[in-house]
């Protein structure tokens, strides 16, 4: 396994094409805007080296028998699925942000079983390709981006009906030695901090849409790939030189639009190529794993936000007020409910034909449906407890200013036992999580990441078995 420092150097050594604010930048490692997101991924390497976390952060490879980072693991049991969620909660606690490495892990596990079953049905060689690829991932301890979301253009039209056929990533050329693909993937979390990218289709494809039913993996510096960084609320505060004003100066997340401009993929890196009947399975399994993930990562971030709200109450001298205690209880209740769903869908996991373990899809979708709601209520309660100062506090430069600094010290002080500076630090952290750069991950990603709310409702409807419930009611009511 790589150490955190080795990981950072490995990313610095990749010649990615990254664009931000109209300019090409050399590496996330040396960008003040992106470096916090790299630090979050680095934490997945650092914690794996620590005795007190390695039980969650590492696993034994089913392919080689070696000790590997759990983010590179193919789940072998329901216990593995549970430990995955616990690991994600831990990392959310340690980074208070999206640590980005889950999406690749979820793509790997979805592809492992889908490629196996596709080969059984079609006589293809995708499973062999994928296992060989997983050996590389584990051996090199790579961070892998999982790219699913196409831009989608007109949502009322299928991929093949779009006025621009590239709005869903597709195969534009098939050669004896591989394929050439064109398109883009939107909202790619962690792409600048990844060694490789796994591409998957975004929806179940139908006959006639074979060019869109494609899955493969390539290095992120492959010719034709470039990344356009998405803005985050308050992002340029990181350029101002103030640790306090950014709220969380060490960790963060990042997203980008990734363009695949006629990218060549060799045959041994292809895991789906035209088998439309397996695109839906891949999408459903990836989404299921990723909806499970949110029952861990968002909970860990929620732990930090609850702690920050409790600290804000302490700073204000309001910690004994019954309504404040009750709000902290409510936040904890909501947060632990999310965790319960993450654990439940994992504990109810089962083996696939390939042998790896898949979560209970109904419970994973219920988990994510709750994630689209509860973080919003948790942030609302945190803002309630924090008070208006979290959005009206002056800058760190003002606090340090010779003339006006003492007035800020005097008038923005809470209880005597807490300095004004510490009070402002807590409020900035709450601001960061509720409406700053981290709100991208904690709020809107909770809404739309791993699928928007309606996507889960469709899955819940499909798996809910209302017919069975009707029979239960009939039996109790003696209706024949």
């Amino acid at each position, binding site marked *: 396994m790589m150490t955190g420092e080795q990981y950072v150097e490995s990313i610095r050594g990749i010649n990615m094409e990254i664009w931000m604010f109209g300019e090409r930048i050399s590496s996330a490692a040396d960008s003040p805007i992106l470096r916090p997101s790299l630090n979050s991924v680095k934490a997945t390497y650092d914690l794996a080296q620590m*005795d*007190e*976390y*390695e*039980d*969650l*952060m590492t696993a034994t490879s089913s392919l080689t028998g070696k000790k590997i980072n759990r983010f590179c693991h193919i789940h072998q049991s329901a*216990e593995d699925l*549970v*430990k995955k969620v*616990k*690991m994600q*909660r*831990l990392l959310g*606690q340690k980074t208070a942000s999206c640590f980005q490495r889950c999406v690749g892990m979820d793509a790997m596990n979805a592809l492992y079983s889908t490629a196996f079953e596709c080969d059984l049905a079609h006589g293809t060689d995708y499973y062999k390709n994928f296992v060989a690829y997983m050996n590389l991932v584990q051996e090199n301890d790579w961070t892998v981006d999982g790219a699913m979301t196409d831009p989608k253009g007109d949502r009322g039209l299928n991929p093949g009906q779009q006025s621009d056929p590239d709005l869903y990533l597709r195969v534009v050329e098939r050669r004896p030695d591989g394929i050439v693909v064109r398109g883009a993937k939107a909202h790619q979390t962690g792409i600048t901090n990844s060694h490789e990218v796994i591409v998957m289709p975004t929806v179940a494809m139908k006959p006639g849409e074979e060019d869109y039913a494609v899955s493969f993996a390539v290095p992120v510096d492959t010719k034709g790939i470039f990344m356009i960084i998405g803005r985050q609320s308050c992002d340029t505060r990181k350029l101002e030189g103030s640790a306090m004003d950014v709220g969380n100066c060490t960790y963060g997340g990042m997203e980008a639009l990734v363009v695949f401009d006629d990218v060549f993929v060799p045959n041994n890196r292809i895991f789906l190529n035209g088998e439309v009947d397996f695109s839906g399975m891949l999408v459903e399994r990836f989404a299921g794993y990723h909806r499970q993930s949110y029952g*861990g990562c968002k909970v*860990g971030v929620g*732990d930090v936000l609850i702690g920050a709200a409790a600290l804000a109450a302490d700073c204000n001298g309001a910690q004994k007020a019954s309504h404040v205690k009750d709000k902290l209880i409510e936040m904890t209740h909501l947060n632990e409910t999310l*965790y319960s769903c993450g654990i439940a869908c994992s504990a109810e996991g089962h083996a696939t034909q390939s042998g790896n373990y898949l979560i209970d899809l109904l419970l994973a979708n219920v988990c994510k449906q709750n994630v689209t709601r509860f973080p919003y209520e948790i942030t609302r309660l945190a803002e309630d407890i924090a008070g208006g100062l979290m959005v009206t506090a002056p800058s760190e430069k003002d606090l340090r200013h010779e003339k006006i600094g003492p007035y800020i010290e005097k008038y923005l002080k809470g209880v005597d036992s807490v300095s004004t500076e510490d009070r402002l630090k807590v409020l900035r952290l709450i601001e960061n999580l509720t409406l700053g750069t981290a709100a991208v991950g904690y709020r809107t990603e909770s809404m739309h990441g791993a699928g928007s709310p309606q996507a889960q409702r469709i899955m819940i409807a499909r798996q809910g078995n209302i017919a069975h419930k009707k029979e239960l009611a009939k039996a109790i009511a003696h209706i024949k």
Partner: protein
Amino acid sequence: MTVAVKYCGGCNPRYGRLELAARIKKEFPWLEVGGGDAPSPDLVLVICGCDRECASHGHFTGYWEKLVLSSPEGYGCIREAIIRCMDKG
């Protein structure tokens, strides 16, 4: 005497797991305390953050004993185990 300390992953610990290990080192400074994979320890301590006790420790064995703990109240048991192992050794 060697003691191997194996931790759970610490996703939601109900107390300071590291503090428990630090307490052992403070009270018994002559003990050689290492990680869970220390070779041939006399005593293995599995320190878990909650009652779920989810640490994977089946393959860790102490020459004399193995103790699984999930609360700071278990410290007395650790003391007794250390003393028992010292008597045996």
